């Protein structure tokens, strides 16, 4: 069983924060007893986008920023498929920002795992939407001039069905969060803090480890409290399930999907032509 999730050899830098994320995912899938063929991972471009190649599953490694629309298309025609979208912070919060807003609104039963290393890795060290103001780079020589995006607060504000933050340095807890996200019925955003050991000299393993803590005694159904937790950043960074609600998913609101996945639906040309074309009176 453990071999079932062994994929290609990763091309990430040694010590990359993506390794524990990959291991957590494999462990979560095994513990949930999911088989690779029951799963489709849609990924974008960036170091995170390579993840599905390093495990085994149905894979659509698409374009930078476009993971969510592809995942939406997959899920809407085959709701039986487990669909996970894997993206980076630039990928999902920058290039694909508009898709994120509307994916949260639709509430399709997709799991979005964002590898948030607060930097662009694949293009070698430029600022990402979540980079902190103290960070300087080749393209931001005076330091970042924009406020960092707070994806957790954004998602809570949009009443996202499931909002959580994990940390690559706490692999066991990250695995549990992944399992919870996959088991949740609704759109799930799991933002994963993940150090880029090559380019991000600010948000390192030790920087995160000093600040990150597991949420305790938090009621994720309480939206006001969730928003307060979402705003915490700096000396203390909470991880865990921050917000959840049981909104109806889009698949339930599309009447024809009650009859089963469209991928298995029979096609009857004659019925269509009889109803439409041989009746000139419409």
């Amino acid at each position, binding site marked *: 069983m453990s071999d079932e999730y062994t994929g290609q050899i990763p091309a990430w830098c040694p010590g990359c924060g993506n390794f524990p994320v990959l291991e957590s995912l494999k462990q979560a899938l095994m513990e949930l007893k999911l088989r690779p063929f029951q799963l489709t991972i849609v990924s974008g471009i960036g170091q995170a986008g390579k993840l599905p190649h390093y495990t085994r599953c149905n894979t659509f490694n698409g374009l930078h920023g*476009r993971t969510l629309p592809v995942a939406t298309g997959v899920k809407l025609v085959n709701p039986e498929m487990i669909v996970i979208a894997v993206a980076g912070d630039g990928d999902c919060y920058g290039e694909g920002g508009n898709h994120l807003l509307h994916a949260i609104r639709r509430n399709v039963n997709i799991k979005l795992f964002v590898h948030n290393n607060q930097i662009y890795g694949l293009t070698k060290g430029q600022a990402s939407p979540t980079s902190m103001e103290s960070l300087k780079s080749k393209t931001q020589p005076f330091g970042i001039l924009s406020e960092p995006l707070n994806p957790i607060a954004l998602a809570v504000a949009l009443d996202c069905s499931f909002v959580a933050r994990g940390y690559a340095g706490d692999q066991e807890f990250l695995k549990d969060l992944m399992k919870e996200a996959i088991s949740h019925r609704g759109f799930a955003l799991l933002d994963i803090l993940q150090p880029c050991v090559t380019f991000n000299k600010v948000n390192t393993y030790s920087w995160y480890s000093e600040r990150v803590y597991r949420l305790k005694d938090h009621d994720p159904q309480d939206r006001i409290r969730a928003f307060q937790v979402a705003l915490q950043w700096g000396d203390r960074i909470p991880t865990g399930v921050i917000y959840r609600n049981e909104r109806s998913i889009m698949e339930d609101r*599309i009447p024809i999907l009650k009859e089963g996945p469209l991928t298995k639906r029979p096609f009857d040309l004659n019925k269509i032509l009889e109803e439409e074309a041989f009746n000139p009176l419409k």
Partner: protein
Amino acid sequence: MDYTIRIAGEAGQGIQTIGGVLSDTLLRSGFYVFSCQDYMSRIRGGHNFFTIRFSDAPVMASRKGVDLLVALNLEGIQNHRDLLTERGMILYDPEATGETFEAEEVLAVPLRKLAVQEGKNPITENTVATAAVIGMLGMDMKVLEEVITETFRRKGEEVVQNNLRAARAGYNYAVQKCLRCGFVVPPVSNPKGLLLNGNEAIALGAIASGCRFYSAYPMTPSTGILNFMASRATRYGIVVEQAEDEIGAINMAIGASFAGVRAMTGSSGGGFALMVEGLSLAAMTETPIVIAEVQRPGPATGLPTRTEQADLLFVLYTGHGEFPRVVFAPGSPEQAFYLTNKAFDLAERFQVPAFVLSDQYLADSRWTIQPLNPERVLYRDYRLKGEELRSLKQYLRHAFTDTGVSPLAVPGDTEHLVVTDSDEHDEEGHITEDALIRQRMVQKRVFRKLPLLKKEISPPTIYGSDRPEVLLLCWGSTYGLVKETVDTLSDRYSIAMMHFSELYPFPEHSGQTWFSILQNARRCISVEQNATNQFCKLLRSETSFHVKEHINRYDGRPFTVDELTEHVQKTLEGHK
């Protein structure tokens, strides 16, 4: 018999309602009907008109002259009066125009007053006008009554009865007062087919091809496809999603196609410009997709509600990288139906993007077309699934094959995994930078598939003289227009039309009859609704044949048969 009715007025006055009910009534009475619309990019006000041409013989374009003008306001009279034919009549309501006209070709009908008196509601004014037209034409009321009953049935019996009374009042008034009306409408029977516009035909073609997913962002003039798909979604099992933008729309469709169903998206030029990145994605991942591009004049926002054929080279060459595609440009709603079907078939069979290139003129023109023939609809499921897939020892999504086409499996259907990547990938679908694999993948995608695709492409349609001295070259929506122009000129010239609807891969020319007709014509004139002869450029790059004479139109309005006839004559006489 060949009459043109025009309904003119402001947006929001019910022009489309009158035009729609009249077209349906004429079709049901057994006439061939052609209708088109001229409207402004606004919801109320402005000046819009709806033109219906009907005849006992097939009609497929508009004429310049108007035989019966329904003017819903003063501008309606002022803008179109000059186009009235010798025996033509104008119908108007002095209450709406604010002016009275005392001429023998003008019939004042108190539309509003009759609507209030007889229809019990001023809203029945459109029904009064529609019935007055039927009365002026000297036709029977029976078919109109049927159409009214069906149109208003869902609004309740009272509304039906009010409209029927309003109709009788308008009809009787016109019959009694229009002493000059000399229209001769022969009795015909049995509808000749169905009335479809280009957008409806594309949508119906998609549905009849088993399309299960349509995503788009509204954009004139392509929105009619989205509306039609949405109206049939529950009946035929289609997910129709209005995306947040066109980038989302094409990526959703690609996701749905990857997951195992036939999928489509559509837009106009500006929206399609946003989809270009996704086009290249579909090509790289060899995910079948059909894209409807309904052109309007550009650049940028251009003329949103008007027509042009200026996106041909854009659609043909856009998308980063090199990959094959299919481009069809139907000339009629009938072609739109069958070519959309063929686009779905080729897209899935060869795993390439396929375009249906239409325009506002075709999108909004309704033609009488023959009942759709199931024998002519292609449907073969090219996807690998079930036992056939399960029995394979190994499955490779992008396996190298003689045809360049790899088996297209449905993910999740068996334990075989389906892997693909927008990066260059190996046979299994995993990212690779290997030079040899890259070379073989390019050869597979481009060199192997393209010649096979080309074999599927039909030659152009030739209409008119077998050995024409004058050849009118055209493509896409101008088909009916040029065909009727050839009819008009065929007693004076040895003339023919050569119409291309399957544009890419370009039809085989070497040794083909059509190409020798082209080479042997003394005068070869292109007719394109653009400024830069885009089709002629394509023809030249594919065949080296150089067209030297051109008729272009780029004011956003379609030609009428009379206008094009005049242009062709001027061109021919200009350089004898």
